[in-house]
């Protein structure tokens, strides 16, 4: 079960090497994204997650807000 975290935990996990993934459409990523985040829109997750992400490291996903 994915763990819900806040921004303080995001910062700590990223310092420890977690991968930060924005799942919004690519144009929104281009405008603004968290430092060091990778763009992996939800619709591309199925086909690209295993290729792009390192399964041995933690992964943090985020979008715009809770919606």
């Amino acid at each position, binding site marked *: 079960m994915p763990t819900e975290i806040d921004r303080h935990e995001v910062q700590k996990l990223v310092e420890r090497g977690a991968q930060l993934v924005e799942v919004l459409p690519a144009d929104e990523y281009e*405008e603004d994204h*968290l430092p060091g985040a990778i763009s992996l829109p939800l619709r591309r997750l199925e086909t690209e997650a295993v290729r792009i992400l390192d399964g041995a490291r933690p992964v943090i996903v*985020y979008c715009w807000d809770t919606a």
Partner: protein
Amino acid sequence: MSPRAAWRLESLGFGEVYDYVAGKLDWMAAGLRTEGTNAAHPRAGEVSRRDVPTAGLAERLGDVRERVRASGWDAVVVINPERVVFGLLRSKELDKDSELRMDQAMRPGPSTFRPYVSIKEMAETMTKHMLESSPITTSDGRLVGLLLQQDATRVAGEQE
């Protein structure tokens, strides 16, 4: 959207998956840095003055005024120990009776703006509503800094 992504990643075999549920909006509202094409344009948070004087609710206006004006300011933000904004005193309120407490002298519940609002938008809003200064706060009401209209219009002008 992120909960679906998190669950799907787990089903694809990723063992340690976290969901930053409050997302980009929360990050930007906290005044934290972002990357991307918009990041090059100044926003309210970075133009605001973070060295704005602050005071507690129970302080005496005369004492605060002396301290504030000695530091070259004509405004002070009233906050609690968690830096949550309760009020604002601009020059007019600072000139009130010295014996008043801050909660009696302040303008309560001032309009606040989030750090990610573009400086161009801030300049337009502050000019339209004749706001000489506006507190910039996080989404949970904590003070980031005080944005002066003169700073907002100057920086917005430099962008054109």
